[in-house]
């Protein structure tokens, strides 16, 4: 990494991401002031510090007297876990199919690309509703929907780059040197599109966190009483006029995470693009 790129490092987004998502996701058990599941009925609907509340509950409490700060800190686990697992599966699946599609072309290509079109055309929320109606809301279901929504982005992008790379001279040279199709895809095409995959995966984190929050908000995501951020926002919905903090702080966590992830993703894209790096 050049010094110049280092200077342009998006420090504020990285700091925010650590504060809101990464540190809480790993250390919530130790840094949260209260147990996120234990209610204290004598301290119900406490406002946050500065709005008549006390430092016992810095961000106030919900209807059952549970500490909002602790719940948000523990909620980061779900946001991070689901986006990591979902994106990893979606990226691997999409990349594999994109490579096959772009390298083999022909009818395989047609079938895979029509599958992508279908997943883009199908409303993911509706699909989640249908699946939740069949099996009930669960963590696995959320991951499934996430994979369903994002694999197509990877497949399409990877296919496009594969189509251009397979015509390059060094691929032709590998072929005449006796490299098999599998070797060409894994050693000549995949390493050359790794940049794209990394950037795409980073930019998908924001999409996935919003999707997970949406599903949880609708009650078809992570089941209660887990403190997923979308669920926390949904919990405060009816009290938003009188007890605004219940929805506001988890909403803020979602906002800051998605914003900083997208800013980091933009920087990463610029940094990994050799054409922009020269400038």
């Amino acid at each position: 990494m050049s010094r110049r790129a280092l200077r342009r490092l998006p420090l504020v987004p990285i700091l925010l991401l650590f504060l809101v998502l990464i540190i809480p996701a790993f250390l919530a058990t130790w840094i949260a002031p209260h147990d996120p599941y234990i209610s204290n009925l004598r301290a119900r609907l406490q406002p946050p510090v500065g709005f008549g509340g006390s430092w016992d509950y810095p961000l106030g409490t919900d209807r059952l007297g549970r500490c909002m700060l602790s719940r948000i800190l523990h909620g980061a686990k779900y946001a991070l876990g689901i986006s990591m697992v979902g994106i990893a599966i979606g990226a691997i699946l999409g990349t594999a199919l994109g490579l096959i599609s772009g390298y083999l072309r022909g009818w395989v290509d047609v079938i895979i690309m029509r599958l992508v079109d279908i997943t883009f055309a199908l409303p993911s929320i509706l699909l989640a509703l249908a699946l939740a109606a069949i099996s009930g809301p669960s963590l696995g279901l959320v991951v499934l929907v996430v994979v369903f929504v994002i694999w197509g982005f990877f497949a399409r992008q990877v296919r496009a780059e594969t189509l251009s790379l397979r015509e390059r001279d060094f691929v032709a040279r590998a072929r005449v040197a006796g490299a098999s199709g599998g070797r060409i895809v894994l050693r000549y095409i995949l390493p050359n599109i790794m940049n794209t995959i990394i950037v795409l995966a980073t930019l998908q984190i924001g999409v996935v966190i919003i999707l997970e929050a949406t599903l949880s908000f609708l009650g078809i995501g992570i089941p209660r009483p887990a403190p997923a951020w979308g669920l926390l926002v949904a919990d405060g919905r009816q009290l938003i006029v009188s007890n605004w903090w219940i929805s506001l702080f988890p909403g803020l966590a979602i906002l800051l995470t998605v914003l900083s992830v997208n800013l980091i993703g933009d920087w990463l894209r610029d940094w990994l693009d050799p054409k922009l790096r020269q400038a």
Partner: protein
Amino acid sequence: MTKNDPILCVKNLRTELALSSGAIEVVRGVSFSVNKGETLGIVGESGSGKSMTALSIMRVLPRPIGRIAGGSIRLDGRDLVQLTESEMTRIRGREIGMILQDPHTSLNPVYTIGNQVIEALQINQQRGGLLEKAISLLKKVNVADAARRVHAFPHQMSGGMKQRVVGAISIAGAPKVIIADEPTTALDVTIQLQYLELLEQIQQETGTAIVFITHDLGIVARLCHRLVVMYAGRIVEEGTVDDVFNAPSHPYTVALLNSVPHVDRKVDRLYAIKGNPPALHEIGTGCSFAPRCPLADTRCKTVSPPTVPGKNHGQGHFAACWKTGEMA
């Protein structure tokens, strides 16, 4: 086996490209053979089908539009046209190697050159001490400071060095035939000569046959033993370098040789062949050079020319022309 056994024998090769406007034949019945330890030049202008001939031999025609429509390509007696793709994968690199035109784009940018030479060795079933073998291969192609350069990435090397590495990769499998498709076109003139000397040296050490595709007649004279001249997908003349250069027997060859500038002759304007090569979908029944040929008559334009012995009746010297006998 003696030196005069043909190792590669192409017979009546026909190659088609299926374009949206219909299939066109880019190689139209090409036959030639290469002996062990021999260098055969294939000369012709752009679009004459010389590269397509090479790609056909390697069976790496552009997919999905290219296909071999007929003929045979015998390597050591085995017909490559009949092989399956996976059998062909085992032939490439091990029995026929190929050097491509542009060294700057022929190497994978994400791996060190050592890594890529080692890969070529692995493809050819070599095991153990691969790094040492890679270094000795690089030394063989005159890469200076090979032990250090083996860890360099392609972008850290010059064009000439990269083309040497490509050469090292193509000889890693000790192929019986190397097809070099204009390997020096992208290099500096001084580096070109070094590279040609390197090819000669490799040939002397390994006894491999070389098919050298070029439009540079100077290189042919310098490097090749025999040459074939291609025009519009056909061979118009074939013979030893001496015969063809001293007694060109096809008007196209004559015109090509006249187009070469000479240091010792002062001319106002360099000779150029009038007109353009024909578009391959509008070739008629006659000789395809007839529209540009100063000697052409009605028969040339309507009836395909026969293959006749060259003017000086040198051994293996042939031209496809009605007018060879009339040429002064």
